[in-house]
């Protein structure tokens, strides 16, 4: 599985009060920007902590850069840069001191990168970390991550506190200096718009399960809203077709594949196809998460399965 930057199989993490990760299968190819998207509490940070060996999985297994999780932790951490959700570092050190403290751990550390990014991100290098604003704390964490020469960057909510200009600059750095070099970036976020621009792969997680994992452009090519009108239409529900809403003689579906064929089929059965329209990631996310919630609360329909679209 070493052609994957991150690979997990049936990963489970049970805390006393919650099943944080619930049978998660991740496939993150090398060299992509992967957006790991989900609501607050969906299990994103728990998953990341397991990947890095900061928490132990209750069940399941996986690899990071080809190294087994939980067994080859040093090898993984040497090659992986991690920005945590909390963005806390030693408060009584300055960014400059934090750089000196951190660089010894990483064989590929670059002082040139420190100089370049501390300027581009406008980081006050000589003020105590505890005195920095939230945005500047985030920037220091990103600086340390970018300077490690890592093959994989795992960024947990990296946009916290960043103003739009700095965020834009950070995205430019990521593309130009990290992704262009064939490195893998794994970004977790609940802000779809932060990630949608730069990601070429997305995984949508909810209640510790993956609802969808695919190339973003493939999702946009395939997923369609189909709205039809007609009386006595058959109740269609499959892993490819979700009935989202039904109102009077109107039905609205989310179709994951071959939407035109689906519309043609309904049309042959006497329905009027009002619209087949593309969906934004935001719309897909809302539809899948809401569907999942009505399902788990015991209503009609089946649980949305994570679909994988074929690579073209």
């Amino acid at each position, binding site marked *: 599985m070493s052609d994957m930057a991150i690979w997990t199989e049936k990963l489970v993490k049970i805390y006393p009060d919650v099943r944080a990760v619930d049978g998660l299968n991740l496939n993150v190819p090398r060299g992509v*920007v992967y957006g790991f998207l989900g609501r607050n509490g969906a299990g994103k940070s728990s998953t990341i902590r397991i990947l890095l060996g900061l928490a132990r999985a209750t069940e399941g297994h996986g690899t990071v850069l080809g190294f087994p999780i939980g067994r080859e932790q040093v090898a993984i951490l040497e090659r992986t840069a991690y920005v945590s959700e909390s963005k806390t570092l030693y408060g009584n050190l300055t960014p400059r001191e934090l750089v000196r403290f951190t660089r010894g751990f990483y064989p590929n550390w670059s002082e040139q990168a420190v100089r370049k990014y501390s300027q581009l991100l406008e980081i006050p290098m000589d003020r105590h970390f505890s005195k920095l604003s939230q945005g500047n704390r985030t920037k220091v964490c990103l600086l340390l991550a970018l300077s490690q020469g890592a093959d994989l960057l795992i960024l947990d909510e990296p946009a916290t506190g960043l103003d739009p200009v700095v965020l834009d600059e950070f995205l*430019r750095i990521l593309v130009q200096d990290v992704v262009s070099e064939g490195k893998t970036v794994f970004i977790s976020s609940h802000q779809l*718009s932060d990630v949608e621009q730069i990601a070429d792969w997305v995984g949508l997680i909810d209640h510790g399960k993956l609802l969808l994992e695919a190339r973003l452009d*493939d999702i946009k090519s395939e997923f369609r809203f189909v709205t039809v009108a007609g009386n006595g239409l058959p109740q269609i529900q499959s892993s490819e077709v979700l009935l989202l809403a039904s109102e009077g003689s109107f039905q609205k579906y989310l179709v994951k594949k071959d939407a035109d064929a689906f519309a043609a089929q309904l049309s042959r059965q006497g329905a009027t196809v009002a619209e087949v329209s593309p969906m934004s990631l935001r719309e897909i996310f809302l539809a899948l998460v809401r569907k999942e919630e009505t399902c788990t609360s015991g209503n009609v329909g089946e649980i949305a399965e994570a679909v994988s679209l074929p690579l073209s």
Partner: protein
Amino acid sequence: MLLHVNPASGVPTYLQIETQVKHYIAAGALTPGDALPSVRQLASDLRISTNTVARAYQDLERDGILRTIPGGRTYVAENPGSFLKAERVRRLRPYARQIAVEGTQLRLDPREIMQLVQQELDALEEEHERYGNLDRKAR
């Protein structure tokens, strides 16, 4: 070359790039032999993954619209559309069908639909002439 992408739209980003490049070529803003920005450059300008730009360039190359010198830059191909007439017609047909379907659904009569298409062709021609006047040989 000024490209713009809207990541929040439902249209795949690589398709947005392809459409704009084709438009620039059709309008004469890009002519055969013109160099395009490198994958890395365009990706960092647009803040999108290099993989997305590479995909758009590969599609355009496959269609004979762009040409990449191995290990080097990407150019507008010398004779884009060198495909056989039949193949070009085959590629355009789905769009023609879509115009026919949408137009009919909006209760426009055939003459009005044809008129619209003609207007778009005229607009493109006009744009082409404007670029031609900008010290460039049209076509």
